[in-house]
């Protein structure tokens, strides 16, 4: 009844999303836990990490993780599956966010807006980004590899420049200030009271839900939806064609996979994901800031999919979680060091923290030093983030997904693993 891991009796079986019952069960449980996480329920809030992430103050971060997951899934299709590395993902997110605020935002003397409901602006954000993606895609046929990466990097600069121009300011608000972004309230059209109120604390079914929790549930549903879509694209005809192009584009064309058509398709899909995520990202903070969609943001996505494991859907999801949460974990870790007295943590903190005296070789300044060595805790957070990226890629170039595969194979073959 549980099925055997590597026994396939038909092609359909091999390409199934979840081949075994165990996987279905575990995934079902996992999703259930995710849905119940924000509530203070007896069993679920005892699970170590879950209890901690379900806290109200962490929900916003988790929601941010989920938005970025959608964008990263899109980039993974483009860069991981089809092998077209793009540093312009933030630009497509920006296109989505600007379209969304143009359609859904309220107009005033400074900015344009049409106040349309969410079911118009959210899909429109994706579609607009996809159209821009289609416009860009012919370049990807001409230009390859790192050249493509830097051309798409140029898009980010062009995007920020458009935001500085007169019409860009009418859409995205003044640079470095931005404009207010509408909430996710579900309305039929422009009526006063929304069908589903997403911007205040309220009551759903038997539960009291806060604003952050509402956003969390909405995003969770979206992430699950987009993950299924992404996973299905990879195992469909399109996905196989994309992988063929990634592995050897000329060979793919010889075998009858039209390179141009599939590059256009993958740019469109990837940008669609980015556009939706961009609009949701602005909706999460309630603020659209055109300079957020900058190079650093694009670069973070590349780091996410590489650390997670390029080309794998689950790796991408883990990568996003890891990259967004690591600075927070480091922050908590240093806070724990700072509070520690006695015991193991005390010894560690004595060794690392400096009090400023001579002969104290601590590397973390105890206060907010304004200059020089030792660095402050806040600077160490940033440095450690860089170090972790480097260390991870050196020790495990296949990313977190590679670690998982190795660990799984080790146990699968035990006791004959080597």
């Amino acid at each position: 009844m549980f099925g055997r891991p590597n026994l396939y009796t038909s092609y359909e079986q091999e390409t199934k999303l979840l081949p075994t019952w165990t996987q279905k069960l575990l995934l079902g449980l996992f999703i259930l836990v995710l849905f119940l996480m924000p509530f203070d329920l007896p069993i679920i809030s005892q699970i170590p990490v879950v209890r901690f992430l379900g806290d109200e103050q962490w929900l916003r971060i988790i929601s941010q993780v989920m938005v970025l997951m959608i964008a990263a899934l899109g980039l993974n299709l483009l860069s991981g599956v089809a092998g077209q590395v793009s540093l312009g993902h933030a630009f497509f997110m920006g296109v989505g966010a600007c379209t969304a605020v143009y359609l859904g935002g309220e107009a005033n003397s400074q900015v344009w807006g049409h106040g349309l409901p969410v079911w118009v602006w959210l899909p429109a954000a994706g579609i607009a980004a996809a159209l821009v993606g289609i416009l860009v895609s012919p370049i990807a046929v001409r230009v390859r590899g790192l050249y493509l990466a830097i051309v798409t990097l140029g898009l980010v600069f062009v995007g920020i420049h458009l935001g500085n121009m007169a019409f860009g300011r009418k859409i995205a608000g003044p640079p470095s200030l931005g404009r207010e972004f509408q909430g996710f309230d579900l309305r039929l059209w422009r009526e006063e009271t929304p069908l589903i109120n997403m911007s205040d604390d309220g009551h759903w079914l038997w539960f009291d839900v806060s604003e952050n929790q509402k956003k969390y549930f909405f995003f969770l549903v979206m992430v699950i939806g987009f993950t299924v879509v992404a996973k299905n694209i990879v195992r469909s005809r399109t996905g196989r064609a994309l992988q063929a192009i990634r592995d050897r584009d000329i060979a793919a064309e010889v075998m009858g996979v039209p390179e141009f058509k599939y590059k256009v398709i993958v740019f469109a899909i990837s940008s669609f994901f980015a556009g939706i995520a961009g609009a949701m990202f602005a909706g999460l903070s309630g603020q659209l800031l055109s300079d957020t969609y900058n190079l650093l943001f694009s670069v973070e996505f590349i780091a996410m999919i590489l650390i997670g494991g390029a080309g794998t859907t689950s790796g991408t999801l883990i990568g996003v979680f890891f990259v967004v949460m690591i600075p927070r974990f480091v922050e908590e870790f240093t806070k724990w060091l700072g509070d520690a007295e006695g015991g193991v943590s005390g010894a560690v903190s004595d060794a690392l923290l400096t009090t400023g005296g001579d002969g104290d070789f601590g590397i973390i300044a105890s206060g907010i030093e304004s200059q020089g060595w030792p660095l402050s805790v806040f600077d160490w957070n940033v440095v450690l983030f860089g170090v972790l990226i480097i260390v991870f890629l050196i020790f495990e170039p296949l990313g977190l997904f590679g670690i998982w595969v190795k660990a799984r194979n080790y146990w699968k073959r035990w006791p004959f693993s080597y």
Partner: protein
Amino acid sequence: MTAILSNDFVKGLRSNVPLAFMVGVLIPTVIFLVMQLINNPDLFLQTFMKSLGLGSTYALIALGFVLIFKATQTVNFAQGSLAVAGALFLSFAVADGHIPLTTIENPLLRIGGPSWIPWFLSVGLALSFAALLGLVIERLAIRPMIGQPLFSVAVITLGLETMLRTFNNDTSETELRSLRVPWGVQGFKIGDAFINWSYVAGIVAATVAFIAVYFFYRSRLGIAMRAVSLDQEAAMAQGINVGRVFAIAWAAGAVLATLGGIMGSQPPVKQTGSIDPTSANIAFRALPAVILGGLDSAVGALLGGLLIGSTEIFAGQYAAGLASTIGPGYPLVIPYVVMLIGLVIRPYGMFGTPEIRRV
């Protein structure tokens, strides 16, 4: 729609775009510039020298990108932070008289004579520090990645960028730091044209760097590097020490970045003779030059740098009245637009080696 979704469309682009570009953009621009030259030759000369100054700064940084790319086949995204790190070292050595983060004094300042002698010697010290930094980075973070996917290496340089930026911010307190350049913002006049000494210095530095690279390419090690850039495994099989080539490339890349950083503290990039952490952006401004010239071509870096630099300055000078139409800060995007057009015409830049693809 089917016409757009076919390769014929792309081939059409290749043959028609250069022509359209020549007729529509290049010829009117040249006519406009000649008119400006006749109209106000002093202003034109001043703008021209300024564009050479910026172009040579870009060329220096672009050359660093090219050397690192030739050896390790990757774009070093930490180039800007390396530039700032080297320039900060110089700033501490000459302005504060000690090595950053330590109390070790800079012995060179005790040398007598005119003040520019210790300054130039300190530049040498900063360049050696940069070389050392390049070597350390290469050994710790890049060498273990031989044979790994190229994009993993590129992301490693992004991690390096994050680290170096933090150290730079902390050492400089995110503030301006003077480099005490002997010629400062002084300059001379030809007619009414004011020309900063720093433009001349930039041109000289770029010339020296390119001559050095020219001879390096003809040396034993340089030939080894070119072999590695063509095929790492084949080069290894010929007995070339690939690791050493990596090390040399990173050391040279860091030295060139530092030179670019020092030039980037002076006019036309900055008027203060100071460096601050935002100076790292100079690397992103120079990227279009590298791409336009071709990622693996030193000549391309030089010409690309000059072309991008002059486009930026001439557009800034003569299109200033259009700023309200084409948006403020347009010099920032013009290099990328030029790069985009250039790449559609020649996908591997002006002098880049096309990748040989096998079925």
